[in-house]
Structures are given as C-alpha cells and as structure tokens.
C-alpha cells in the first residue's frame, strides 16, 4: 500500500466548533474532527478515493481518521486535521521552553487503513491514556 509524507497542521473549523459545542462525546464531533483534509494530488499519490479511512503516524503517535478532500485548499504538501484529540494524537509536544507545544508543522506519514474505524473522542482518549 502507498504511504505518503506530508506536513500536518490543525486549527478550528466552524464544523469543529459546532460539533464541540454539541457534545464531544457525540459522533458528530468525530465526523467533524476525525478527518484529514488532503489535496486531490495526495489522493492520487495514495491511490485511494476520497472518504477513505487512513492511518496517520508521526514520531509522537498514530491515529485513524477519514481522508476527505481539502475544503480550504489547495494546500500542496499540507494535511489538515481540525483541532481536537485526533490531531493531538500526532502533534509534537516540544515547547522549545515556551510552554507552547508545536501544534502546527508535524511531519506525518499517511497510509491507507480502509478497514479500521475512526474512534469517537472519548474512546480515542480512553484507549490512548487509560
């Protein structure tokens, strides 16, 4: 299976905000944030269609999310996971002694994980931490 290297960033989306305020334990939150937005070119490199589950891995962790087409692109070389536990499973905790983890600009590897499920927020955090 193909695997690609991209630079991962995250941040707010209006869907993330609405879903967060509707309840982080709800599936809607997972649907809003358990995603990876990629340019069309990246889908070609991965050899998959949009809306396929992928495994994203960094030096700091691994998470399964659904790869979808970039809604605010194109952004060549960049992948986007909305702010939330899915993105935070991957980001660089190094703060360079400023207190601020390096939330944006994490090198990640994406490979196809069609048969794996995207966990909801509570299940994800429980699995990772408890």
């Amino acid at each position, binding site marked *: 299976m193909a695997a690609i290297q991209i630079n991962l960033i995250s941040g707010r989306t209006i869907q993330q905000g609405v879903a967060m305020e509707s309840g982080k334990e709800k599936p809607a939150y997972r649907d809003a944030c358990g995603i990876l937005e990629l340019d069309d070119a990246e889908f070609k490199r991965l050899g998959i269609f949009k809306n396929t589950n992928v495994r994203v891995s960094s030096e700091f962790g691994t998470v399964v999310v659904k790869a979808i087409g970039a809604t605010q692109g194109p952004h060549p070389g960049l992948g986007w996971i909305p702010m939330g536990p899915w993105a935070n*499973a991957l980001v660089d905790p190094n703060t360079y002694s400023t207190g*601020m983890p390096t939330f944006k600009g994490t090198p990640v590897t994406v490979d196809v994980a069609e048969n794996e499920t995207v966990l909801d927020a509570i299940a994800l955090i429980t699995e990772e931490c408890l």
Partner: protein
Amino acid sequence: MAKIVTDVVCPFCGTLCDDLEVALSDDGKEILEVYNACAIGATKFLHSQASDRLTRPQKKQEDGSWKEVTYDEAADYTAKMLVDAKKPLMYGWSSTSCSAQGVGAEIGEEVGACMDNTATVCHGSTLIAVQDVGVPSATLGEIANRADRVVFWGCNPAHAHPRHMSRYSIFPRGFFTGKGSKSRQMIVVDPRNTDTAKMADVHLQLEQGHDYELLSAIRVAIRGEKLPDVVAGISKEQIYEVADTLKSGRFAVIFFGMGVTHSLGKNHNIDIAISVTRDLNDYTKAAIVPMRGHYNVTGSGQVWGWQFGFPFCLDLTRGFARYNPGDSSSNDLLVRDELDAVFVLGSDPGAHFPVRSVKKIAQLPSVCIDPHITPTSAVSKMHVPVAFVGVEVGGCAYRMDNVPIETKKVVEPPEGMLTDEEFLQLVLNRVRELKGAA
C-alpha cells in the same frame, strides 16, 4: 408569546458578540431560538439544555465506572487532593467568569498551586512576545471606525471567529470607513487557501512554518532595503507591494491567530509581527490584535495580572508568584513529570493538549469541572458538572481587545446544579478547614 432577552453576550469566542437575542418559552425556562449569533454560538446556547446532560458530580470507581456523588463530596475530594498534593496544577479558567477566576485564584494561593489558563496552548506565545516588545493595539471599534488596511495573519475568522469580519474588521461602515469593505484592503497570510483567504484582496500563501522569515522580509521592505528573490515561498515583488500597501494606508491593523502562535518560532513570530506594527507607526497608524479564542481567556489573564502580576503560567508553590513559560507552563510541567495532581475548570486539555500530556493527567489524581462530558472528564477521577456561564449564570468577561463585558444569565440551570463560582467557594471553604485543622 415568546419572551425575548436582548443584549445577550455570546460565551463562545473572544469576539464576545453582545447583541444576541434569545427567545425563551413562556415560562422562561427553555431557550427556543438564538438570533444574531453565529452557528457555534447558537449551538452553545441551544445545546446547554440538552436532555442527556449531567447534573450531578460523578466519581470514577476502581472498575472504571462512574458513581454519582454530592457536590459536597466532590468539593471535599477536590480540596483534599489540592491540599495533599505537593505540586498541583489548576488549569483552564477560560470559559468562566472573572468572579469564578477570582475565587480560583484564592484557592490556588491557599494550596500553593501552579495555575495556568488556555493561553498556554493558544496565545501564550503572544503574551511572551508582548512581554518582550510590547503591543501597539486598539479596541475593535477603532478598527471598525478607522482601519483601511486589514491583515489576517495565520488566522481564519470565517471559521474561528465567524462574526469578526462583519462586526469589527471588514464589513462595518464605521465613522471614517463609510464604504464598509470597499474602504478596506484585505490581506490574508496563510499556507492554506482558507475561506477567509478567498475573500481577500491579497492572499500570501506562504510556506508553512516560515512566518518569521516573511515578517522579517516585510520589515526589510518597509525600510526599503534589499531582499532575496523569494522568502517563505513569496516573491520579493509581492513582499514590497504588501509593504507599500500597508505603509500607504491611513490605519493598518494586523490580526493574527494560531497559525503563528503554534508554528515554529512561536513567540518570535508574534514578536516580529509586533515589530512590523511598530515600524508601520513611523509611517502611518498601525495596530495589532490577537484573535483570542475562548471568550474569557483574556479575563483570566487580567484577573491574575492584578492579583499576581502575571497573565498565565503562575507557580504559586513557594507562597509567592513566579512565572516562566517553559518551566511553569502546563505542558512542560506534565511532560517533565513535575506534578502530582491536576484540577481542570473551564477548558478541555484532554481534547486540546498533545496526547503525551493527556496521558499524564490520566495517571494523576484529577478533577474536571465542566458542564459537558469531555475527553478531560473521561480521563479524570472526578467530573463535576456545573451551570453554563453566560447562559445560566452571568459574570464579567474580557473580549480579545481586553474590553470587559458582563455576560448575562438567560435561563435557570437545572435544579440543584451549582455554578463554577459556587462550587469553587465550597472547595475554598473546605481547603481552609483542612488547612486550619493541619
């Protein structure tokens, strides 16, 4: 006939819109509709009354299940945890009122806690930069009334602060900006072609993580010095053009967000953006405003400022306040194993901290005070649901430009539920009893 409450303040983001109107049922108990709010703000009001909402504290049992306890029991557990710990962290403080923050500060002082707010993962870099170089700024109304050059750098208000552009920055017809958006040149700097960028006159789609270099290049261009052909993926011609656009305006403003605070360089990215603003004031008028996230993260920095002298990353363990992000900051404390208890109120580090930090919270005695079930409550030993500030209880909050506005109580919380402040007061009383007994 529905009852309409006017001048309601939205307790979601730092835009702190204060023109919401909320329609209530005849008995005044139920929120039917929210007018003037963005989708997120409206959801916050409407979801506050969800039928599956928790209304009593829960304590995690050995087997991982949750058991309901009384608020008094929860306060006792919390107080004991804080008093017994050698170095507890009291984190959050952003989605709550200044009065709750004030009681929290007293608890923190009594128990010798490290106290930190969500700036630590949001605009903490900004606070550090402001401490290094200051901040020439203005209230949002100044921008609405005067600004003719508006830069959004590493921020996406179309998504994160949905009413910002219509209320303050792009569309309002202000006193000296009578043509609204036509009075303004809009520049967006973002590695993505965001929905905000799509509206801009100029979009600089820079290489992610090179904000510092690009801002430095703009300073070089402002001074008319030579530049390399390309900086951060942007051609020098375009950089000179942007510098000229900014200099030629009557009032330029830079709004910035997590794109710069979270990327490599962090405080330095802001520092140099502030330096650009400072430079521009030699040619025209310029201001810079951080797009603060939580509706009252600014307030917690203010309350701590006047009580302790520092806006975040407080270490009160020695009985007096110390401050140094990198040492006294939540994520460093967690990752470096410096803590032995965690208290969270008005924030969700479980969702918004790197997982390595969340794992540490899960390993320690921990209490989460939050109206919602969240990833933080899921990993904590105790979850204390409370009334929604700004919906079920009022209180002062500070907007992203530090303007204080009093949020409103619109409906009653479910019977028997406490507010943040009431619960904190229980904890404070219990802490004092425990310390008195010791």
